[in-house]
Structures are given as C-alpha cells and as structure tokens.
C-alpha cells in the first residue's frame, strides 16, 4: 500500500480531538459514529449545528468538525430550537442523555414534540446518570442497582423505566419521526438517525431517536456483561424500531380543517 492505513472515522469527526473523552467501551462513541456517518451520507456538514448537554454528552463538545454548543443539563433542545427559529437553513442536532431528556428536560421534550419543532433529538439511554457517577435515571431498570438505588430500583417507590419514544409518539403531530435504536445494531441506528436528519431537512417535523447505549464505567461491567445488559436486560424493556414515520395519521387528533376560534 502506498498510503499508511488510517482510522475509518466519519469525515465529520475531528481527528485532532481523538481519542475522544469518553470512557473505554462507552456507547457514546458508537452513537456518535452513527451520527457522523449519517451526516457524511447526507452531505450536510457545512450546515449542521451540534448541541450537547451536560451529562457525558458534554464530552463531545469538541468531537466534530461542526460548530458545537455545549449547553446546560436538559437545555440542549431549547438552545437549538432558538437557533433553528432564526436560521431555518441550518440542521440542528440535540444530543443528550436520558437524564437530561426525560427528567430535568422533560418539559422541553414534550413541548418540542407538541410544537413539532424542526430539530433532530438523539437521546442516549444508558439507564442511569453517567456523568455524575451512576445514579438512578428515569430509564433505570426494575431492580437495577445504582448509586441512589443501592438495594435495586423499587418500582413501587420510584416507578418503572420511562419509554421515551413512546412518550414523544403520543404527543407529536403527523410529520414527526420517532424511533429507538441500539448500539447493538449500529447499521439500523445509523439509518434511524439519517432518517431523523432528513425529516428535519425536509421540514416535516421533529425527529426523535433514542439510542440504547452502554456505560461500562457505572455499570461496572466487562465487555461481555456490557453486551449482555444491552441486548438482554435493556432490550426486554425498550423495544427497538420505528414508532412514527412521517405522514402516518395520528389517532385521536382532529384534522387540520376544524375551525377552532370562538368568535369574538
């Protein structure tokens, strides 16, 4: 070979900041590879803005050759919605953890879904709060031990794992794209993300993709246990697949034509 072998990073990855800041075996890296490949495939590097949350997603603040804004915990979507409203030609990607999306930022998620904001949201479901050292998240599995459920999550007291895409699908209007993928199926995940970006580009509506991820550091798992946890334990609670694809009619929602205003 004439040329020295080089890593097959997506073009939009910034090689200068690699190895990235995530832990060994962290699922974030795989998801950001899928995202990078989707951006490459669509050729939208020049107009994509990447936003990351507080949570381990913040470690991607210098990950891409993309203009990037690292925001507060749970506030990534509002910041990107703020950008999108004044710069509709841009493609905005809101990247965050399950805590940011489903706990502290749930009002933003619900509202963006209801407004059908033109934003692509990727939520990394690692069943707990990674960055703060492994506390319970809304996604924590029943019986799962975390730092704040040291004796296992008690569903009676703390509830069952939240189904994020199902939540979004329940309130988003037609035009929304909603899916759940997994790092256990990278090709599908990339496909979902790419469709989610396209949904925004074509102005159809919100795109929401949850990605089942791995946090070996806080799970305290070796590689084999990591895969087993994602593919067995998590998969049992979080089914992967597409929940909403644009155009699909939404039941219980009246048509556009219904007049709404009381006469003043």
């Amino acid at each position, binding site marked *: 070979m004439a040329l020295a072998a080089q890593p097959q990073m997506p073009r939009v990855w910034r090689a200068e900041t690699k190895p990235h800041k995530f832990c060994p075996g962290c699922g974030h890296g795989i998801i950001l590879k899928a995202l990078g490949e989707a951006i490459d495939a669509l050729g939208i590097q020049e107009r994509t803005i990447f936003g990351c949350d507080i949570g381990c997603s913040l470690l991607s603040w210098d990950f891409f050759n993309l203009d990037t804004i690292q925001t507060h915990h749970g*506030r990534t979507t509002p910041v990107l919605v703020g950008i999108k409203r004044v710069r509709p030609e841009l493609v905005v990607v809101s990247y965050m953890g399950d805590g940011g999306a489903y706990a502290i930022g749930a009002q933003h998620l619900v*509202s963006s879904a209801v407004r059908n904001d033109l934003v692509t949201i990727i939520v990394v479901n690692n069943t707990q709060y990674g960055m703060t050292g492994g506390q319970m998240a809304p996604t924590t599995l029943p019986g799962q031990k975390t730092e704040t459920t040291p004796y296992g999550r008690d569903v009676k007291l703390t509830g069952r794992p939240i189904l994020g895409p199902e939540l979004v699908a329940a309130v988003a209007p037609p035009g929304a794209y909603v899916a759940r993928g997994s790092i256990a199926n990278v090709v599908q995940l990339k496909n979902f993300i790419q469709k989610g970006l396209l949904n925004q580009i074509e102005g159809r509506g919100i795109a929401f993709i949850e990605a089942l991820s791995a946090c070996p550091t806080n799970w305290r798992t070796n590689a084999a246990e990591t895969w087993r946890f994602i593919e067995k334990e998590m998969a049992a609670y979080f089914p992967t697949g597409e929940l909403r694809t644009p155009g699909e009619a939404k039941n219980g929602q009246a048509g556009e034509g219904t007049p709404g205003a009381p006469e003043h």
Partner: protein
Amino acid sequence: MAAKPIEGEQRAFMTGNEVVAWAALAAGADIMYGYPITPQNEIMHYWTRMAPRYDRGFLQTEDEISAGFTTVGGVLAGKRAFTATAGPGNVLMQEAMSMAEMMRLPTVVVVTQRGGPSTATVIYSQQELNLTCFGGNGEGLRIVYSTSSHQDLFNYTIKAFNTAWKYRFPTFVLGDGYQSKMREPVTIYDPATRGIVMEECRPMVGLPGIAGIDREPAHLRNTYNLEDELYDRLTASIKDYQAMIPEVVEWEACAVDDDEILVIAHGVVSRAARAAVDSLREAGIKAGYFRPITLRPFPEEALQPLAARAQRILVVESAHGQLERQVRASLYGLETPVSGYLRPGMGITPEEIIGAVQQTLRS
C-alpha cells in the same frame, strides 16, 4: 424588506409594555422568545401583533427556562434576540443568564419587577435588584439599566441591544409593573434619526465555510475541567468588565452642590425622589438627588464625591435595602450617615419622601 416600524419621531401616549415592544421593533430585534407572566404580558401581546408586519419572529416557550435558553440560541445564531419576564420568571431566567454570563452571550432581558418573594403580588416592586444584578451562580458580570419613565424604557431598550452586542455581557432593562401598566407620554423614534447606529450582530455558530476544512469549528462550552482554566476565563471576563465600566456607567444627579441630605433612588421611585427634592428646595431644605441608571456596573465613582459632600444620605426604594446595600458597599470608606426609606413592594410618593427626609433631618 418590510418598512421601518417607526419613521422619524412620533409622540404617543401608551403603556410601558407597548413602549418596550415598539423599542424592540425600532432597534431591529429579530425575535422575541417568551413565556407569559404579569406584568410583562403586554410586551408579548404588542409584539405578536406588530412583529409579523416587519418579518420579526416570536416563539412562546414552555417556561422561562426555555425562554432564556431559546434566547441564548437566537443570540448564538447571530440574531438580535430578547425576552421579557418578571418575579418567579426572573428567578428561572437566571439559569440561562448564568450560561450567558459564562459564555459572554449578548442576551437582552426586559424585567418588569413585581412583588416578591415568590408569587407575592403581580403588581410592582423594586425587589428584583439583587436577582437581576447578581442572580445565578456567578459574579454578576451583567449590565442592568434601571428605567424610570416610558422615555427611558424606549431609550434603554434600544441601548441594551447595543451594549449587549458591543461588550458581550447579558444585559437587562429593569422596569417594574407600574411602568408596564401605566400610560404616559413618550416620544418613539427610529434610532437612525438620532444618529444611533445599531451594533452589528455576528453569529457564533453556523459560520460560513466547512468547519475543519475552511476554518476551525466553533466549539463553545461552559464547562471546564480544571479550576485554573475557569480562573483564567473569569479573570479575562472580569478584566473586560472593569474596562467597560467607564464607558457604560450612567447616572443622574441634581441639586448636589450644597445639599445637606442626598436622596438616592432608582427606577420609577427616582421620579418621586426628584419631585420631593424639588419641593424640599422650594421649602428651603437643602436636599440633593442622585439616581443610578446602571445598577450594574454601579456608578460608584460618580456617587462618591457627592456622598462625601452631603451630610446625610437617604436611600429610598420599594424593597428592603437592596439598593441601600449596594450604596453602602460602594461608598465604603465614607462616614456620611446612610439611612433608608424602605417599602418592599409598595409604591412611593413624593410626599412620603418629603416626610422621610424631614424625619431624617430631625433625627
């Protein structure tokens, strides 16, 4: 492009909230993000009626947290974006404003103070001084203009955008519920006719060219790994802030050459203070008047010699000593006795101030 919202100058008799909406239009604000709260609502009401005619945007968010962060987004995108809030909304707004303070984002927030703490009243107070100047988990690297009249509201709303974009600190126009709801005469104008040039707004993300190829990517963060990194960042900001002070600081004073008692008030209360001082002078009492217009940065250099010269200082405010604490801290080193006429959440009339001055002089 749509026509100018205001051609030349116009006299009008309107509410303060309407004035703010006109000012933002005149200043070329691109978008308002907001969440309803009394007494700021009518800013949004007027804005949503007028903005579409001039191709300006509006987004009603789900709460003030989102209003703050979408405003941050609009500013990052290089647009003249603003929001308005009050009371508990101002409390929530601090989260985004602390990010703006860290990242030097030129956000503009109009605050129409209401009674506090908590929901308290939807009416009026000057109790959001501490919050607006020093809210959030930072050092108060902000600019806060306290307005006293509709003319101020118009002038300083326009100015706020320029100060924010020039110096890149979060900038606040601090009004109150009285100003929001009252009607009084005002002259609204196209800033250009007064020679006011609007600062250019530049995007911080979404820059031209491919990042990593044509240019470096904009990698903006508010989180540092080491204490030293943060310290360096803050030290640079503090330096900029201090360098800015002489250019930005504003105040108003009168009858301060021979005053025995200096009355200090800000915002709408300063009008009553001014009237009281006029009356007192007529009655032969040597009262002086000082009004900080910028509460942050505080005009301490201007105030010091006046305060030193006076024999007594009376701070008058619709709060329990928020301005007074600022005055005391700023004047440290002087010995002129300071007292306060403090009426948290209550309007203050010239008569009350006259009474308070007389009592102070007797005591």
